[in-house]
């Protein structure tokens, strides 16, 4: 059974991914019989190249994607290096769950309302400090360099990378490494960078790759915060894909393939940069500079983004929650003139119904993904299941129409089971991403001891390995749950509109720009995964209370 698991995972993933890719690549070369494209041609590419915004859109996607990834990684590492083991660090980690469970779209809306010229910051300062009794005509949200978009992405990716770093730390002897480095006189930050970072970065690579691919091809955040003239390539592909003029589907597919190539190119460049930095870093590390004096300024520096992210998300969410109960709220009033629960009562029936469906889908898909991942990892598969990472690297908008065609062929679409399956395609990679590194880093000597004491392999798994990995298992489940809750396009396309979740509802309402409604659904969309994340962080601590040896830093 367990031996068949890697094969099962590959089979389960290969078919959707292949159909999805065919659905992107074939129309990009002119083949889509239902739209009259019966022969292969390069016309879609000519159309794509003729689009005047292509150069700018490609530059934007690269700049915002790579910029957000570099910043997120740098901020995460700086925070961990400067603060690990302190009380402030424990406060920061306890805030991870709410940050992570907040859907990207909701976080972006919150940020937009904070920093817009008619937003909370401007309201707080007006008119007494600024003299504005009307919002100033400033381009902050949708700025042409994409800085607001980068900020929105960093806000969500830092918590994700931080969680991945914590999971990795638990499986490395970071405490001992730091003790040695400190006793040799290294400063906290420099010592961490030289001794702990090389050990955990290998475990962080895949999450970083996923962040890079996601940041370059994200659609919802880019719609809310990103530039519009032109937008990023992914947004433009979505525009073409959903345009009423059906012949634009071909251009859209060519754009999707280009997006895929861009992501692959950026990943290759990233790997190259890793090599260069590693080579330079080895020389730097062996020079032996201790630099303990840097700790204080670097700590202060790390506090800045931590505060900014905490406040950005916290106030943004508070703003949305306030909007959900707001009556009339004019500029420059800091608070609404009156309050009411009208929007909440209007939506309550929908909220319960869709909340139930969402939780069922998320719980089941995370559970199945976890079981499959454990089975596949136990069977020793690591390389063969690499194919499941493809769904994270191919832009969703490119490969979902192909996937939905597959659902139609099989007559499976529009059912809860089909939606569960397609959620699995996206949930499984994230679960495997969060579990495989801790799994590999598990100290196998514990298993060896158990085996010499006569335990069968399955008993080693159940009685030794899984309990030792409780924390990683809980986190992987929560990541899977949150991933499932956040799925929009897969639910919409495979569910054929017949399976609704809080997210399909929220994104449909997001089109309204109605801050009161967005507030209601953002709060609900966050509550579900938040509860699960809180459990995931609390449960291991609870279980490990009487097993001090199980505790991880």
């Amino acid at each position, binding site marked *: 059974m367990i031996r068949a698991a890697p094969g099962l995972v590959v089979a389960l993933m290969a078919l959707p991914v292949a159909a999805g890719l*065919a659905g992107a690549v074939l129309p990009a070369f002119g083949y889509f019989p*239902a*739209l009259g494209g019966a022969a292969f041609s390069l016309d879609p590419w000519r159309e794509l190249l003729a*689009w*005047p*915004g292509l150069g*700018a859109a490609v530059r934007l996607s690269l700049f915002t994607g790579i910029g957000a990834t570099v910043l997120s990684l740098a901020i995460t590492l700086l925070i961990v290096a400067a603060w690990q083991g302190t009380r402030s660090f424990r406060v920061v980690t306890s805030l991870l769950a709410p940050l992570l469970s907040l859907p990207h779209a909701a976080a972006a809306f919150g940020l937009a309302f904070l920093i*817009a010229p*008619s937003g909370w910051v401007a309201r707080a300062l007006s008119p007494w400090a600024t003299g504005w009794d*009307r*919002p100033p*005509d*400033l*381009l902050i*949200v949708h*700025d*042409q360099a994409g800085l607001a978009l980068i900020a929105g992405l960093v806000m969500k990716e830092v918590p994700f990378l931080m969680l991945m770093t914590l999971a990795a730390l638990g499986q490395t002897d970071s405490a001992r490494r730091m003790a040695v480095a400190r006793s040799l006189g290294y400063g906290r930050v420099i010592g961490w960078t030289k001794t702990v970072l090389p050990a955990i970065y290998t475990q962080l690579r895949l999450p970083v790759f996923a962040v890079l691919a996601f940041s370059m091809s994200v659609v919802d955040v880019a719609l809310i915060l990103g530039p*519009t*003239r*032109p937008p990023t390539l992914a947004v433009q592909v979505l*525009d073409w894909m*959903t*345009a*009423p*003029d*059906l012949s634009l*589907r071909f251009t859209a597919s060519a754009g999707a393939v280009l997006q895929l190539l861009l992501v692959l190119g950026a990943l290759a460049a990233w790997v190259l940069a890793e090599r260069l930095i590693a080579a330079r870093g080895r020389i730097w590390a062996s020079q032996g500079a201790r630099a303990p004096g840097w700790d204080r300024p670097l700590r202060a520096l790390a506090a800045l983004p931590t505060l900014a992210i905490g406040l950005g998300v916290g106030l943004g969410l508070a703003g949305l929650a306030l909007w959900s109960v707001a*009556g*009339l709220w*004019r*500029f420059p009033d800091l608070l609404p003139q009156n309050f*009411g629960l*009208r929007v909440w009562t*209007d*939506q309550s029936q929908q909220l319960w119904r869709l909340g139930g469906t969402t939780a069922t889908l998320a719980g089941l898909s995370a559970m199945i993904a976890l079981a499959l991942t454990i089975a596949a990892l136990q069977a020793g598969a690591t390389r063969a299941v690499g194919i499941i990472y493809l769904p994270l690297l191919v832009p969703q908008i490119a490969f979902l*129409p192909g996937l*939905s*065609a597959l659902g*139609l*062929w*099989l*007559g499976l*679409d529009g059912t809860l089971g089909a939606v569960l399956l397609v959620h699995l395609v996206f949930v499984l990679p994230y679960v495997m991403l969060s579990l495989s590194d801790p799994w590999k880093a598990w100290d196998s000597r514990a298993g060896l001891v158990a085996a010499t004491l006569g335990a069968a392999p399955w008993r080693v798994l159940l009685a030794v390995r899984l309990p030792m990995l409780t924390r990683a298992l809980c986190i992987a489940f929560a990541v899977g749950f949150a991933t499932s809750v956040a799925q929009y396009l897969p639910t*919409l*396309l495979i569910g*054929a*509109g*017949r399976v609704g979740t809080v997210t*399909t509802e929220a*994104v*449909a*309402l*997001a*089109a*309204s*720009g*109605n*801050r*009161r*409604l967005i507030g209601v659904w953002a709060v609900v969309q966050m509550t579900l995964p938040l509860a699960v994340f809180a459990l995931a962080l609390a449960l291991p601590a609870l279980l490990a209370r009487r097993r001090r040896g199980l505790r991880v830093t």
Partner: protein
Amino acid sequence: MRFLTCVAACALGGALPAVAQTPNPADWPAVLEQARGQTVYWHAWGGDPRINAFIAQVGEVLSERHDVTLEHVRLADTADAVTRVVSERAAGRDTGGAVDAIWINGANFASMKDQGLLFGPFAYDLPNWPLVDTDANPAVEIDFTLPVEGYGSPWAMFQMVFEYDSRAVPEPPRSLDALRAWIAENPGRFTYPQPPDFLGTSFLKQALYGVLDDPSVLLGPTDAVDYDTVTAPLWAFLDEITPNLWRSGRAYPANEPALGQLLADAEVDIGFSFNPGRASAAIADGELPDTIRTMVFDDGTLANSSYLSIPYNAANKAGALVLANLILDPQIQALAQDPAVLGFQTVLGMDRLAPEDRARFGALELGIATLAPDAMGTGLLEPHPSWMTRVAEDWTARYGTAE
């Protein structure tokens, strides 16, 4: 791929037996009989809570009167439903499709009708069709210059109205030239949704009506005229106003609701919408200040209709037909026209209604910001769809990708 299609088609053929019995709209009792117990999936834009609440109310009546269940599939974009039907045809699912009814008009309708993706003609066979005032509103049978030919049933009419804050703009501009002058005097206080958004492109077409000496060319395809010469005054107009737009034209709101939010936040003083009753309804819900009023250009503003269409492969065509007939019912039409509910303009002719039905409309309040029907001025015909596509494309090349 082709092999898979074959296999799936055979499987589907076996799995879906007699559900695909196509109803005959002319035999209405049989349609009602066949519809009983069906669930109709109506794909309609879901971005406005007022519209969603209205559709839910229609669903209640549909289930009470006809034992048909209505599920509102809330779309972020109508094109998503078009995509759905296209993928179904690609997969060979010519019966048992997921989309039973679509709220549609304009380029989406033209595209589906062109591709043969619509069921019909059915509209003329609906029992409530004789109530539709085709004499006073011949435009309900012509969608963006394309004859509808019964492939869609009109159920609401829309006309562009400008919404302005009477506190900031006591004397609103009532022509394109007046608007041009107002923008120059009030930099940063006007904008339009970024084309190819529907409302944004509609503003460009409205502007075309204002700058052309002979707007009748708009009713034919763009190929029929010297497009560059005809549109030159439009680009001159836009070049002139762009530096004085909101954010100096470096960014644009995404769509109608985003423009409405700018008006609510007082980031702009003049906005516009296709629903003449939207402002009143938004004021009633506390989303707009009660100083907002609406107005139209003296020379008229664009007008169009919304249709309900049924895809060729819909699984529950009979139920969809019953729905199409129900939303032409005087009771439902009066509900839609109620400014506290939607404020949509009815397609029914008052002289064709029974007295008690006429009274339903007479009892409606207009709403604080809504113009009386006789103050709505001329409804301008929507240009041929090719104008929408081409003008939006050119706009993108000129203003949408700059810098």
